């Protein structure tokens, strides 16, 4: 809630003005009936037609003032609510963008998506509606109580005595519904998740003819969501009848008390009748107020979910850098790096290697051996549990993140393309020149298919790149990584879908044009990495071999085995051929 206040504050004066206009409008609406009473009671007996017209004119004037202030206030309420929502959504999206990978893992994407859309939207509604209808209720309540107070203080006290009950009811219901609305939004996350899975997995689901099964799966969350919605609704629905009942019972008590007072001669029945008509106003005001509270509780539940993200702590602080450059001959250095995602089992254990500028490291190993994890650590998506990673002799944790990551060009294993033009996908918001982009496409062996098949760089990439083959997608991603001439290039299984010929041409282009770029290449094919300066063989998070192709053929059994399996040649024959050169 305090988080929300921060957004309301800048609009404070503006909102006060809105409330003032609303106040004026409410006053005018209250004035008009009393003007009517005045005409009938006081003016008509005078039989002065001119005066009747004059007071009629005053009424119309009040009506005009009421409508203009009301319309203006509504507009202002929407504007300020819109402004606040814009800022909240902006901050939320910014915070989400900067969430660490671990935090994103914890929040999950579907939940974050619905916080951005559904939750901010509900907060927007709350902010606007509270301004639009939140004024009249309190004014009428206070006004009504004050007037009855001057008329008949004792009877008013009876009525006021019922207020604590109402406050209690509203407080309990609001408290309950905040938590139920919170649950409702969580279930909404679940529904969004199933929906997303069905959209992204449509091919598999259709292929396995599992539509009926998926329908059931959706039905389950749909039903659960509908039930939670009903529960939330039912809880808030109680507030209105309960409030009315308490007030009405209070009213009955007023009449009984009034009877005693009349008996004692302390008041007259006329006062009681007048009291009753004001009572209707108070009742309506009270109902308005409870309505606001119900709206408030939904908005608050959503605001809480937004705050959770906004207030997520920075969990990857930049370590202080003492400034002393330890001269290092190495560009990238892993020193006994150990890491675990879940802290149950190490995903990487004691990994060490060094790369000089321009050198290439190839990483090979079975699936799940920690290859991609190593990349995640180097780019500081996660922090190491033990050991350190150095860039130019300096711990990567001492670099501000943008400064660190600016040096890299990366293709991830599960990388994505936007539904935008090919050019925009390669540029990726960096504002690169057309020549740079075309050159990168050329190096990435993407130029031919772009020109041949798709016409030009402006051709659109479909959602999730569905109009491109796997190899075409990979080449666009590689072009993206190359386009800004990175200091360090990381290719995580980035050429798995390329045919061997294209793969070889790619490596050739890299060798020619990116000789100064330090490269880390994860691959399944030995041919992709055998020319690397160093090769790291991973198994189960451990380094089981490190060296050049030749050294590993001699020393690492697993490596040798992979080589023989892939090429169908004996390692010996390679070594002999090498030796004979």
């Amino acid at each position, binding site marked *: 809630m305090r988080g929300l206040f921060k957004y309301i504050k800048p609009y404070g004066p503006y909102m006060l003005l809105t409330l003032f206009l609303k106040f004026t409008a409410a006053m005018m609406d209250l004035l008009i009936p009393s*003007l009517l009473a005045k005409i*009938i009671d006081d003016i*008509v007996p005078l039989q002065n*037609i001119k005066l009747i017209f004059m007071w009629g004119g005053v009424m*119309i004037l009040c*009506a*005009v003032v009421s*409508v203009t202030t009301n319309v203006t206030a*509504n507009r202002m309420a*929407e*504007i300020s609510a*819109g402004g606040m929502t814009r800022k909240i959504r*902006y901050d939320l*999206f910014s915070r989400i*963008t900067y969430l660490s990978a671990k935090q994103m893992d914890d929040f*999950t*994407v579907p939940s974050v*998506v619905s916080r951005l859309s559904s939750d901010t*939207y509900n907060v927007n509604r709350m902010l*606007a509606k509270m301004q639009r209808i939140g004024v009249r209720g309190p004014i009428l309540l206070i006004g009504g109580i004050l007037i009855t107070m001057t008329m008949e203080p004792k009877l008013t006290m009876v009525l006021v005595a019922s207020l604590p009950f109402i406050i209690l009811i509203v407080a309990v219901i609001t408290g309950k519904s905040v938590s139920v609305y919170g649950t409702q939004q969580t279930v909404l996350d679940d529904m969004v998740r199933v*929906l997303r899975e069905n*959209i992204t997995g*449509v091919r*598999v689901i259709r*292929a*396995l003819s599992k539509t009926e099964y*998926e*329908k059931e799966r959706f039905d389950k969350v749909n039903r659960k969501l*509908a039930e939670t919605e009903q529960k939330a609704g039912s809880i808030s*629905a*109680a507030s*209105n*009848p309960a409030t*009315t009942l308490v007030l009405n019972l209070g009213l*009955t008590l007023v*009449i009984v008390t009034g*009877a005693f007072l*009349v*008996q004692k001669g302390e008041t007259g*029945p006329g006062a009681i009748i007048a009291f*009753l008509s004001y009572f209707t106003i108070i009742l309506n005001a009270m109902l308005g107020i409870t309505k606001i509270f119900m709206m408030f509780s939904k908005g608050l539940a959503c605001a809480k979910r937004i705050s959770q993200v906004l207030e997520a702590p920075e969990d990857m602080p930049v370590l202080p850098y003492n400034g002393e450059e330890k001269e290092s001959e190495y560009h990238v250095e892993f020193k006994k790096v150990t890491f675990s*995602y879940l802290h*149950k089992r190490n*995903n990487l254990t004691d990994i060490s290697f060094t790369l000089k500028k321009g050198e290439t490291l190839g990483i090979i190993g079975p*699936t799940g051996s920690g290859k991609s994890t190593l990349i995640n650590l180097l780019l500081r998506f996660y922090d190491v549990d033990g050991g350190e990673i150095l860039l130019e002799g300096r711990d990567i944790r001492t670099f501000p993140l943008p400064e660190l*990551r600016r040096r890299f060009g990366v293709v*991830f*294993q599960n990388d*994505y393309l936007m539904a935008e033009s090919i050019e925009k996908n390669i540029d990726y918001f960096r504002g690169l020149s057309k020549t740079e982009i075309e050159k990168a496409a050329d190096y990435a062996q993407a130029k031919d298919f772009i020109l041949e098949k798709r016409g030009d760089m402006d051709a659109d990439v479909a*959602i999730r790149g569905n*109009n491109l*083959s*796997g*190899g075409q997608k990979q080449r666009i991603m590689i072009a993206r990584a190359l386009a800004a001439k990175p200091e360090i290039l990381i290719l995580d299984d980035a050429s798995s879908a*390329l*045919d*061997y010929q294209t793969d070889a041409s790619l490596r*050739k282009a890299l060798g020619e044009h990116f000789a100064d770029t330090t490269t880390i290449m994860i691959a*399944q094919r*030995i041919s992709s990495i055998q020319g690397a300066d160093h090769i790291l063989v991973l198994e189960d998070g451990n380094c089981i071999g490190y060296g050049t192709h030749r050294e590993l053929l001699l020393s690492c059994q697993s490596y040798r085995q992979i080589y023989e399996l892939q090429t169908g040649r004996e390692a010996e024959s390679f070594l002999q051929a090498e030796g004979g050169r």
Partner: protein
Amino acid sequence: MRKLSKKYLIVRLWEYLSRYRFLLFLGAAFMLLSNFLSLLGPRLSGKAIDAIGTKKGSVDFKTVFYYAGLMAVFYVLSAVFSYALSLLTIRLTRNVIYQMRKDVFESLSKLPVSFFDRYQTGDIISVVSYDIDTVNQSLAGDFLQILQSVITVLFSFVMMLTIAPPMVLIFVVTIPVSVMMTKFVTGRSRPLYRVRSKKLGELNGFSEEMLNGQKTTRAYGREEDVIEAFEKKNVEAVDANTKAEYYGTLSGPSVNFMNNISLALISVFGSLLYLNGKIGLGDVSSFVQYSRKFSGPINETANIIGELQSAFAAAERVFRLIDELPEKPDRESAGVLEEVYGNVLLKDVAFSYQEGQPILYDFNLEALAGQQIAIVGPTGAGKTTVINLLMRFYDIDSGAILLDGQDIYGIRRDSLRKAYSMVLQDTWLFHGTIFENLTYGNENITREEVERAAKAAGIHSYIMSLPEGYDTILSDNGVHISKGQRQLLTIARAMLSDSRMLILDEATSNVDTRTEMQIQKAMRSLMEDKTCFVIAHRLSTIRNADMILVVKDGTVVERGTHEQLLAMEGFYQKLYAAQFMTIENS
């Protein structure tokens, strides 16, 4: 885009409400009862006050208590009914919203695969969450409210007519003006609400897409640019919302204004009539009271109509999605496959995703039952498209595809697809336990069978290393599972499904060679007796295929066994040689 008429939308919405006619009827009854009871309250209180009398010491306490007691009872009853009414409305809303989401999902599950290649995930989600929510925010409640308003208005109108017919003339002026104003406002606001729904959908689509690529954005340090692009969409969405809401909230105050004006006119003309001796002063006062009763619901209705505009705009998006053309229905005569042998024939097949850009042409393929057919060729040659056609994700433009001599367009889609198992490069796992992902809804599979398959697929020991073993929930958080492991899981899944034909599209592209070797035996048994279509870059995987098709630029350029193709010294031979090229000799 075709605009859906308001009438059409109302009819469609009514279809939903009318399914719960009984609830609606009950709701109306409760509403009348609760209103009636609450109207009785003032009368009873009047009686009680009469009993109090005017003089000190003359209070008839017995009567006062009697009526006060009655009042209390009636108030309690009224509260009960109005609570019951609320619960009913909520239940009604719940049923409608549930049904609507269900219908949208139903429609989604029938849409052709190409639909999902065109629409942003976030935009579709926005329809199911935001738009449906907006439709139902007040649908059932509004309906009852309007009903109540109509009753009150009619009643008051009759009463006013009986009191002073000439004064009703005032309404002849003001009501049409109010109606026109409301019409004007709604006419302005509905397109704006439509824009709002659209913009919110776009915003959602954008954020969904960008969040999927968050890691890339961060790696490239483009956070600020993405945020800026988001902000552009955000401003658009907020502006659209502000504009729409502004017009939407206009109808309430303006109709209220007309009511105030009529009140002023009534008092002036009423006074004049009184002065001319046409009516009594009491008549003026009761006329005023009824006119207020009259204007209250009109005001309310105008407000609701304003709100309904946003519901209509949202409903349009919902119905449009529900009405999206489904996959061409199976032919009436389409039959279910009884027994599948697995003879597949593609004859002169031509296909293009977009007109004028042929992807496949003159494509011929014959696979005999149990044969292994490999499709190789450079990326983008159309290999995956062949799979899309076999599975009928897309329909061919010309030519024919036969399964066991039967045109596949004469077979029911679900039946055809069931005949295949498929392992794709893009693995898909859902939020659920590993066990659930492996059996994927097939309850007849035992734990032992699952473990056997997982062992064969070389993923068992990894699964056992997870904290909960087979019961570990695969989700976005926590369990980091590599792409290769995902592929192994899908292979295990395919092993558990029993079908006569198998499609492997780069099924092991992210699996390392050694693991691939280890699971080769299992793969062979998976492929045994099945007609297999294999797409792979690693030519070692397909060396033993019965027939290798070399596809280039959308058609078959060479075909034969591995040996035959090598002997041809053509394109295949070149591809094959490239595999063993190293940096040194390239």
